[in-house]
Every structure is written in structure tokens, then in C-alpha cells.
């Protein structure tokens, strides 16, 4: 809303402060009440009402318009003005939100408390101003009313800020693959090992991952049909531990029948090669192939 709108609407009304001055002098008599039949278009009243966001907003307007200190509201005067608007709106038979009437009741209550004799002070000897709650509510409301104006003033998309965009004419198919967290895989392994353990009736051994990795490395080096000299599989720079791991890996490969150790004659250098397919197994394999064909 904007204040000029409100002022325009207000100008159609017998504004509150006008009451201080006689409204008119008729036959020498001061008339301070507007004539009851004074015509104000209901639409104008509606506009007036809609210009406010509720009773707190209306009260704030009355206070600010007269440059009153919000901390020291002349409650009697403000209440009188507020009630006048309410009466007027009711006279216009406009549907008035319940909040406006509740505020009227609250103002009347504060006014009456201000007039009552002072009761004894409380334990702290402090006196609470009957207006305190109203003032706090007005302040808090005004605070957020301003915050709303501040937010409205922030440069925002569509109104003030435009995003720079360029056209992607044709989207390329770029399949992205599922991710795995290492932990997921480890949990899966833990499960499968536990499951397998329940059925395990065979010997139990401790797995050495270094040895497993080294087994893979050695097999990878034996991809071709060539013989590798046994000694070349060892990397002395790995130290005693490294050499031992390699040795255990070779033994395990031999045990699993994955590699063969060959020696031309006694004391000749040892060589390592891929295990040679057993003739019978190859035959079996051929048979299997025939069957599937």
C-alpha cells in the first residue's frame, strides 16, 4: 500500500482531528458531529479499509500521522479516533473484520485502566504501564512492516535481476554411472563372508590381502606365453617383507595351479610361466563347446 492512497481515502472522511474544530456553524451553533446522512460512497470506505493490513496497521497510521511518540501514546485520544473510524465503518454497514473490534475492546480496556486509581506496586516495586503490551505489539508489527518494505526493495529476479542464459541446442547423451561408497562394498563383503562362514566346513585361514594383490600382479605379468625368470618377480627395494609377500604369492599361485615353476636342470635358474592347460581338461572343454553347439 502507499500512504497517498490512504490519504486520498481519508480525505473523503470526516478525519478525526477535524473534530477538534467545529465541523460547521449552523445558526450560530457549533456542529461538531458530521451529519449522519452525509454520503460517503461505500466503495471509498472499502478502499480505505483495504489500505490497512489490520487494526495494528490502522493504529500505527493514526499515531504516525500525528507524529506521536509510539512509546507515549495519548491513549484516550488515539482510542477516540480509532473508535470513530470503527463506528463509521459500522454505520456504513461494511463487514468489519473481527480483529478491528477486538482492538477496540482492548483500547477501551487500557483507557479504563489508565483512569483507575493506582493499585499497590508489585513485589519489585515496578509499575507496569497499561499501554506496555499495546506498545510492544505496535513496535513488533511496525518492525516487520518495515522488514517487508526492505525485502520488497531488495533487487529480485524477474523485476530487477535477469539471469544470463545460453541455449543448449542438442543435449548429448552422457550416461552417468552409479556411485558406490567404499563402505557399502565393505558392508556387502562382511555380509557375504558371514553368510559363507555359516556353511563353511573346510579349513579356515587368514586372508592376506597383500598376497592376493601380489598374486594378481604376477599373473598380470604372465599374460603372454613367455617364461619369466623367477628372480625378476622380486623387487629387492621392497625389503624383506616385500620379498616374502612375493614368495608367498608365488607359492599360493602354484598351489592353486595358476602358474608353473620350471627348471631346465638342477641348479639352473628357475622360471615361472602360466599353467599349461591339462590335455584332458582342454579336451573336456572342447567337448563342452561341441555340446553347446
Amino acid at each position: 500500500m502507499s500512504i497517498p492512497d490512504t490519504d486520498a481515502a481519508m480525505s473523503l472522511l470526516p478525519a478525526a482531528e477535524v473534530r477538534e474544530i467545529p465541523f460547521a456553524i449552523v445558526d450560530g451553533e457549533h456542529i461538531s458531529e458530521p451529519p449522519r446522512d452525509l454520503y460517503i460512497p461505500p466503495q471509498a470506505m472499502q478502499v480505505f479499509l483495504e489500505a490497512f493490513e489490520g487494526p495494528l496497521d490502522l493504529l500505527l497510521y493514526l499515531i504516525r500521522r500525528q507524529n506521536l511518540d509510539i512509546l507515549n501514546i495519548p491513549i484516550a485520544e488515539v482510542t477516540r479516533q480509532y473508535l470513530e473510524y470503527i463506528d463509521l465503518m459500522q454505520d456504513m454497514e461494511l463487514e468489519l473484520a473481527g480483529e478491528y473490534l477486538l482492538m477496540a475492546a482492548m483500547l477501551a480496556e487500557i483507557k479504563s485502566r489508565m483512569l483507575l486509581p493506582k493499585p499497590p506496586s508489585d513485589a519489585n516495586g515496578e509499575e507496569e504501564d497499561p499501554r506496555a503490551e499495546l506498545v510492544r505489539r505496535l513496535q513488533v508489527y511496525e518492525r516487520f512492516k518495515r522488514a517487508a518494505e526492505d525485502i520488497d526493495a531488495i533487487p529480485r529476479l524477474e523485476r530487477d535481476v535477469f539471469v544470463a542464459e545460453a541455449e543448449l541446442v542438442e543435449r548429448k547423451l552422457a550416461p552417468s554411472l552409479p556411485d558406490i561408497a567404499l563402505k557399502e562394498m565393505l558392508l556387502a563383503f562382511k555380509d557375504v563372508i558371514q553368510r559363507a562362514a555359516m556353511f563353511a566346513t573346510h579349513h579356515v585361514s587368514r586372508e592376506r590381502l597383500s598376497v592376493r594383490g601380489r598374486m594378481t600382479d604376477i599373473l598380470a605379468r604372465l599374460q603372454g606365453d613367455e617364461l619369466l625368470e623367477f628372480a625378476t618377480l622380486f623387487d629387492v627395494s621392497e625389503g624383506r617383507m616385500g620379498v616374502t609377500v612375493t614368495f608367498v604369492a608365488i607359492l599360493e599361485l602354484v598351489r592353486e595351479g595358476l602358474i608353473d615353476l620350471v627348471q631346465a636342470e638342477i641348479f639352473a635358474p628357475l622360471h615361472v610361466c602360466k599353467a599349461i592347460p591339462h590335455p584332458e581338461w582342454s579336451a573336456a572343454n572342447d567337448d563342452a563347446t561341441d555340446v553347446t553347439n
Partner: protein
Amino acid sequence: MSEPYVKNVVEAALLASGRPLTVTELFELFDEFAKPERASIEMALTELAAEYESRGIELREVASGYRIQIRDSIATPVSRLWSERPAKYSRALLETLALIAYRQPITRGEIEDIRGVAVNPNIIRTLLERNWVRVIGHREVPGRPELLATTKDFLDYFGLKTLDALPTLAELKDIESLGVQLDFSSGVALPEAAELQEIMGSDEDEGVPVAVSGSVSG
């Protein structure tokens, strides 16, 4: 200097996406086997920001990442591209939004207490539809009212990086400091002390009393 390829992908992605992108999102665009260092993506962003200095566009970091936008100084001619004026938002909507932004999480009832007037359900619906506001839970009181909070989209829309970037709220003056000067012609009347105590003491975090008043809302 960053690799030209990295900078080109970063710039093209920001321009193609139509929404802000985080460094992580930019990082993930690169092929698994040709991923740059995260640092080189950050470097590319810094370089782009510097290159845009003399241009009509700028790189801006908002809540959900980086975006390239039209520089403010050039927004006027560019805004002539659209003949329609952008939508204005009502005061009621802006006040409701302000309360949600500054007091989140907050229930509709609490908004109504502060504004002193009922909140039109259309306003909350509009805020939810725009994805500026979302329900983040329920207050465990009778009726389990929904707790409303703002979203990253809200911050993005207003070009903010965090909620802290919102304008600061006006100071509240304390009527108590004025108490001494009060001069009541016919003595000071106390409201029911207990009642006020309860009302005023409900919001310690800011020292701002939430105007929750049984007598008003009831």
C-alpha cells in the same frame, strides 16, 4: 591460470543451466577419468568473475551456488525486452514472508498474532507454490500447526547468499526505560501482572515479545 577447457565448461554450464550451480555440481560434469581439481574449478570461477568486470554480465554467488546474471548498470535497456511489468506482491504477502524469513520456523498462528490479523490462506499457498517457503515440521502443541521456513529458492530469488544477508530488523525501543517519566493523572493501573508476564516473556531469543495474547486472539 585455469585450464581453458575447465573454464569453458564452467561458463557454458552456468549459462545453460538456468539455475545456480555449486562447485560440486560443476565438478561432477567432468568425465570420471578427466576430472579437474576442485581448485581449478574455483580458479575458473574467479577468472570468469574478473573477465566479466568490464562486461554487461556478472558472476554472483547466491544461496544455492553461482549464477551469471545481467549487471545492474545495464538492466534498464535489457528490461525493455519484456513489455509486461513484473508482478507486484501485496503488502500482506510481503509482511507474511518477512515474518517467516526473520522468525522461522514460525506457525501461521504466530504470524497472525504479530500482524494482528488473519492470514489469507492464498498467501501461504502462493509462497509455497513459488517455493519460497516450505513446511519443515509441526509445533507440538494442540492442533500440531505447521512450522514454516524459507527455502534456498527464496534466497536465490532475492540474490542472497544466506539469511544473514537480509536487511537488519529495526531496533525495538523499550517502554520500561520510559516508565519513570510516566505521569498518570489518576495513578498507574496494573494489568493482570501474571498475564502480561506470560505474554511478554515468551520470546527470549531476541527480547522481542511475540504478541501472543489470549484476550486478543481468543
